[in-house]
Every structure is written in structure tokens, then in C-alpha cells.
């Protein structure tokens, strides 16, 4: 999931759960059935889990653009004093393309 996707997933989870909880309570109250309220709520927890917890593609619509390793190496060679992540420094040595 990307950052936008995480936010979407969290919002979706909260809105779905709270809406279904209200709906379950009102339905149970109208029909005078405590059991029905519990069943609807249990079902809504499962449904919300299925939709908001797994890593669906819809949560990955704004993927981050990570830099290519070679570009990072090039950058660090041009600016030798700037701190460089250990990965980039000890990463695969590719022949730099100019």
C-alpha cells in the first residue's frame, strides 16, 4: 500500500464499521431482536475486514517514485559530502551511464 492508500484504507474501515454499527443497532431496535443486531454487526466486521485490511490494488494507485539505485550513486558521487544511505553506497556497482 502507498501512503494515500493507507489513509483511504483507514478512513474506509472507520466509516464502514461505524455506519454498520448504527445500522445494526437501529435494525435490532426496530425489530426487537438483540440477536439480529449482533449478527449484523458480526457480518459487518467481517465485510469491513475483507475490504480494508488486505493489500488490494485500489490502495496502490499513487505509488511512490523511488529513485533508481544508479541515479542515487551518481548523485552521491557528484556531492561527496552529503550523507548517503548505506544501501546506496554499498549497493550493486553498475557502470554509470552518462
Amino acid at each position, binding site marked *: *500500500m502507498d501512503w494515500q492508500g*493507507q*489513509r483511504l*484504507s*483507514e478512513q474506509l*474501515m*472507520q466509516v464502514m*464499521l*461505524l455506519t454498520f*454499527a448504527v445500522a*445494526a*443497532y437501529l435494525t*435490532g*431496535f426496530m425489530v*426487537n*431482536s*438483540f440477536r439480529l*443486531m449482533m449478527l449484523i*454487526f458480526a457480518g459487518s*466486521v467481517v465485510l*469491513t*475486514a475483507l475490504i*480494508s*485490511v*488486505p*493489500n488490494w490494488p485500489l490502495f496502490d494507485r499513487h505509488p511512490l517514485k523511488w529513485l533508481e539505485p544508479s541515479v542515487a550513486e551518481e548523485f552521491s558521487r557528484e556531492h561527496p559530502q552529503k550523507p548517503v544511505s548505506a544501501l546506496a553506497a554499498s549497493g550493486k556497482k553498475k557502470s554509470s551511464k552518462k
Partner: protein
Amino acid sequence: MHSFGYRLNALLTLGVTTLALMCAMASFSDNFNHPSPSANVQVMNVNWFQKQSSGNDEVSLTLKISADLQSTFTWNTKQVFAFLAAEYETPGNSLNQISLWDSIIPSKERAKFTIHTKNKYRLIDQGSNLRGKEFNLTLHWHVMPKTGKMFADKIVMTGYRLPVDYR
């Protein structure tokens, strides 16, 4: 919301919190129920009335108990526990309460009933004060909820009197 486990935990925690809130609201909704119960008890017969070897009076009664507790049931009611108590005053105790009969009513349909029964529990006095005694029969009930607060109430029926002599 970083990982699968994190999101699942957040969902389950919110779910449990919401569940607690729904149960609290369900219990709160019981306050809007205004029950109108009724009850009537007749002492059909005094089977026997003796002073036991311990020196305490004991009496055995046959009762006809009819009651309608249907209006005490709500959507949040698990069962209603009802019991009938004999209440009277003696020189030694300002209030004596003796449970004669009780019953668990599991559903609204069973809450309207009439039964003929001998007293389920023995009516034994602390002492020998029962001859000619005036007493009340009070039907108590506890509305036991599925979740939340329990409500208890009673109907007092007066005007009963035990025989003057042992029999």
C-alpha cells in the same frame, strides 16, 4: 496502517469498542420501557400449621398465583426471575420476608401464567408468632438483561391472615 497486522488490529479494536458502545446503548434503551405488570395470589388452602420441635411455627399453604409480567420484557431481556415472598411483622423482627416460590421466566410468551402450587420453600418463623398473623404476599421480579443494568420491582398484595389455631 502500515502492515496487514496493524490494520487488522486497528479494525478489531475499533470493533470491540463499538460493540461495547452498542451494548451500553441497548441497556440504556431499557429505561424507556414502562412496564404495566399485574399479579394476584389466592391462598387456596392451609394444608397444616404446626409448632415444630425446634419451637418455631411452620405453615404449609397451597397457593394460586396468577401474574402477567409480559410488559417487563424488552429486546434486551434475557429472562425474568420472579419470586413470591410472605412478609409480616413480629415483636422480634420489624420485617420478616420468607420466599415461598420462585420461577425463571425465559421468554415473553411464558410471562403470563396461572399456577396452583404448594409453597416451594418452607414457611418457618423465627419463633412462634404465626397464629392469627396478618401478612402480605409480595411478588418480586428481577428483569435480567442480556447486557447492562438489571431492573427489579414488586407488587405488594395485602390482606392475608393465618389461622388462629394450629391444625
